[in-house]
């Protein structure tokens, strides 16, 4: 199989004959991927591929190149390819990133051959290669009642909300549920029962929305043994968030709301 790394450095001939021509200005890079095929493999293992990379390519382009021209069994999720759908969170060189938001020019080694490592996000079970079981993640999200709760009759027009009230929870409305934050959290790695940063971010989005009336209920849920108090303010989550949400700050604000029962 042409898939594995040959000792023959810089050998473009590693590429299949019917692959598209290597574009001018491309650099050959090694992409090392943690693989697992449940129908074949007993354990996770690493495989390496040499692929051409343009500076403007995203890591997702590397994965597509491998899947489309070298090994069609390589499996990962992706959709929008520009950082809004949240499908392709993975560990890239050891940190959680969206594969479609990391440019290869930022990955090139300063000197010598570039090697990129790609692993599935941690803390959710690996189903196949870079694709993990997202169900526990979405269960935690659903548990915090992620929807506007109001009582009484709906107004005939919109509910009013001041610009400042709207601004209060703006940051946490950006969440795309990619799980990069939750699966970067050491507490989540060791105890999967922890709600995790993403669920708390989405609770924050409603707790601090002036229109919502279920803040107390959500705070009670997050006061639970698996709730916000598990957070050790490691800031991994904030670093991992592709949307730039101040995740740790949001968690701290929920903690403070719990301590003082006011928002």
């Amino acid at each position, binding site marked *: 199989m042409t898939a594995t790394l040959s000792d023959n450095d810089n050998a473009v001939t590693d590429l299949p004959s019917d692959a598209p021509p290597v574009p001018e200005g491309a650099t050959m890079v090694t992409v090392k991927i943690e693989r697992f095929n449940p129908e074949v493999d007993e354990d996770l293992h690493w495989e390496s591929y040499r692929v051409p990379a343009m500076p403007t390519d995203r890591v997702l382009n590397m994965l597509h190149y491998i899947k489309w021209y070298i090994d*069609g069994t390589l499996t990962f999720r992706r*959709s929008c390819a*520009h950082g809004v759908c949240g499908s392709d969170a993975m560990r890239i060189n050891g940190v959680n990133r969206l594969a479609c938001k990391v440019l290869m020019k930022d990955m090139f080694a300063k000197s010598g051959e570039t090697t990129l490592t790609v692993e599935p996000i941690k803390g959710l079970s690996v189903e196949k290669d870079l694709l993990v079981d997202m169900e526990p993640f979405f269960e935690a999200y659903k548990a915090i009642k992620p929807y506007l709760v109001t009582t009484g009759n709906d107004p005939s027009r919109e509910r009013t909300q001041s610009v400042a009230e*709207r601004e209060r929870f703006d940051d946490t409305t950006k969440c795309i549920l990619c799980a990069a934050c939750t699966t970067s959290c050491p507490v989540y790695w060791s105890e999967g029962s922890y709600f995790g940063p993403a669920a708390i971010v989405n609770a924050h989005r409603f707790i601090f929305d002036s*229109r919502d009336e279920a803040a107390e209920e959500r705070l009670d849920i997050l006061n639970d043994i698996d709730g916000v108090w598990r957070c050790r303010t490691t800031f991994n989550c904030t670093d991992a968030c592709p949307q730039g949400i101040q995740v740790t700050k949001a968690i701290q604000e929920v903690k403070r709301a719990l301590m003082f029962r006011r928002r």
Partner: protein
Amino acid sequence: MQFHKYDVLIVGAGGAGMRAAIESGQRARTAVLTKIYPTRSHTGAAQGGMCAALSNVEEDNWEWHTFDTIKGGDYLVDQDAAEIMAKEAIDAVLDLERMGLPFNRTPEGKIDQRRFGGHTREHGTAPVRRACYAADRTGHMILQTLYQNCIKHGVEFFNEFYVLDVNMSTNEDGEEVCTGAVAYELATGEIHVFEAKSVVFATGGFGKVFKTTSNAHTLTGDGMGIVYRKGLPLEDMEFYQFHPTGLAGLGILISEAVRGEGGILRNVDGERFMERYAPTIKDLAPRDIVARSMALEVLEGRGCGSNKDYVLLDVTHLGEEVLESKLPDITAFSRTYLGVDPISEPVPVYPTAHYAMGGIPTNVDGEVLRDNETSVSGLYAAGECACVSVHGSNRLGTNSLLDINVFGRRAGIAAAEYAHSREHVEMPEEPAKLVQGMVDHLRTAHGGERVANIRTALQETMDANASVYRTEDTLKQALSDVQLLKERYGRIAVHDKGMRFNSDLLEAVELGFLLDLAEALVNSALARKESRGGHAREDYGARDDTNFMRHSMSYKQLPDAEDPDAPLGLTGFLADIRLDYKPVSVTRYQPMERKY
């Protein structure tokens, strides 16, 4: 094989599917089948806004909105449908607000509104503030809010289930009715038969027939392809929208809201060239006009960059505060993907394949049409995969987010009410036969052709020959290319032979739909010897109302069931499509010359 039984099936969990599910789920036993997790849907990539004549910041009314939509669509819009959409837009926005959508607000705390291309006051005198928005993440907020409300109402989702066929049976009265759908489960490779009284397709567009596109990898037109392969028509396939401002070379969308907030398009001379093409509303002309103007600037040598192949979108005069508060995401896209900071330098842009005006023909309740008049009982469609037609030959910005909410809701209600009024009709014998055949065929195929190479060749010919400007020659080239690619498609091999999470196999299935839809697009474009809205023929530059103020209807000739290639939808490769036409519904607006 597994069997399931529901009242209503909804295929697709983007905006239209989930809006339908919220209605249907409260009225009937409903399942949503979606090939990706709901929050991954491409509704989330929509940026600028959703228009409704709320009059929150200045005088407006839904009649102006109706007129703008019809004129924007170059009079190919069905006017009764456009009127419904513009009228119901107001409640559609208010419904979303009540569901929790965090709209930007006015100083008085009302939903804020901004300008958008083609939306005007008093039938074209000046731009109007009609687009309700949440920064430049309006689609994201709509998708999240609808998903949140699906959770609230306990809607049942089957995530990563690829629907690959829809079932029809003949009932006791001799009527052909929809009886369910067949899905492939990504996780296990298992085939599931879902029996239902009604099925709503809300599967989105097929932008992946093009190379430069704002569309997601998953937008492969599966729902349209499935319906088309049943011998049902697709309407107005030649009308495909090229959004003016894709990031040059990449196609990533830069919202029209940038121009709504005051952004200006400039050529290599720094000239604001839209003043020449649309003197009244300039950069806020509808997308087809702006895209053609940009393409012309480049063709005539006034493009920018070393290859002179793009123009510039200038927002440097807007200031950091406006960009960060009202257009933060697109500012970030430009920085991330082009390394250009819009605060200090103009952004290279060029038209990108964006939206299918055509699709599965429906009436205003989402019922799918089998010909110009009659509908298929139990079969519904909504959103980009459908053609009501509220967009005619060119959709106005924001009207897609509106379409999914108004007609998603209508289709959901209609499908549930239909299910209440009917009993289950027995499914055909061997309901999964076609899907089983397709999957078995692909898994065992040993040809020498590679899916990726055929897909790339398709995208390249479509970009070169069927995009902003078209001629008889380019379209004939595209048609013969697509037909040769279909032949090659019959000789593909799929590398992954496994059962679990076999996305390799599904990419091959998706390519089959793309080929069918590209062929329909090019075939109907060849036949339309006029220029109208998103369809610009260099060889027939004028609109021709006498011969072409009518919708095209493409019917695929059904494959012979005994043909070994039948599971792939292949029928040999010429004379595959029968083309017919349907009248436009005109109520109060007679066609006029379209000037802005």
